[in-house]
């Protein structure tokens, strides 16, 4: 049995404390790296990161997308609907289909 981790800025993750996820607060790059290490050492099934952290830790997160655990997901953010999360999805669709037919039609 494993758990859900949330990594983000202090304000962003505080609310998740009550949701049943384990919240990790990080306000700068080195702190974020440290917390990520901690998360990876533990047994988490899902790692949710905010857009901001995902941007900070772009390189660190890259190898994780290939691993079975934890599943890294970028939190949807209403302020940035075309953010990194969508970008990642678009890239994957493009690679599989060969063209970005789908997302364009729905915008």
């Amino acid at each position, binding site marked *: 049995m494993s758990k*859900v981790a949330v990594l983000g800025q202090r304000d962003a993750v505080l609310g998740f*404390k009550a*949701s*049943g996820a*384990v919240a990790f607060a990080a306000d700068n790059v080195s702190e974020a790296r440290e917390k990520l290490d901690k998360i990876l050492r533990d047994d988490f099934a*899902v790692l949710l990161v905010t857009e901001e952290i995902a941007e900070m830790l772009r390189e660190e997160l890259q190898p994780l997308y290939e691993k079975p655990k934890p599943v890294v*997901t970028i939190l*949807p953010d209403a302020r940035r609907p075309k953010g990194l999360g969508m970008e990642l*999805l678009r890239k*994957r669709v493009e690679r599989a289909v060969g063209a970005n037919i789908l997302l364009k039609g729905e915008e």
Partner: protein
Amino acid sequence: MELRVSATRQELTRLKNRVRMAVRGHRLLKDKRDQLMKEFMAIVHENQRLRKELEKRLSAAYRSFAQARAVLSPPVLEEALMASSGPEEVSITYRRIMNVVVPEMEIQRSGDGDGDGAAGEAGAVSQGHVVDANIPPYGLASTSSDLDDAIKEFRGILPLLVKLSEVERKIQLLADEIERTRRRVNALEYILIPELEAAVKSVEMRLEEMDRANASRLMKVKDIVRAH
């Protein structure tokens, strides 16, 4: 590039068998690719739907949480958050889509009322579904109703986020598989099959040429024999 083969009948049969095999494999892989694509599209649509819904609900949750935070003092808030729930467990099972192993994740909620264990299903936690009907485990006097709302929101969102993670991982795995399958289909279609067919043709032509050479030699020999 041309295949180098010896021009014999045995080789010809072998080559023809290989062509037949390659064409069959090609058809199969093409079907696999099309089916994968269908599954992939369905999952991508689901992902977009989930993302949209979560965007809305998350910002709502943040809003009520911000209100709660404005009213409450940090220690009280911290205490309330600590008390409200322990970490949730996620169970992972694996399923196969066209031979691609994909995870299915579900949140196990033990502390809640019955039926909530299946909260991982997106349908079961649609809007307005109250995740925890119990009275909050923190002091009601010292906290505000905004906090109750915020916590309820966040608890309702978590299963959706787990679902989103599952869906995104599926997309990634399927995208890899589709790419791989497409490469194989293309390799068969544009390289292996044309190459084999060219080899069959060249062997056939050489065999025919040898036949003709043989026939004309025989005629010549016949002429020489008759002249004597």
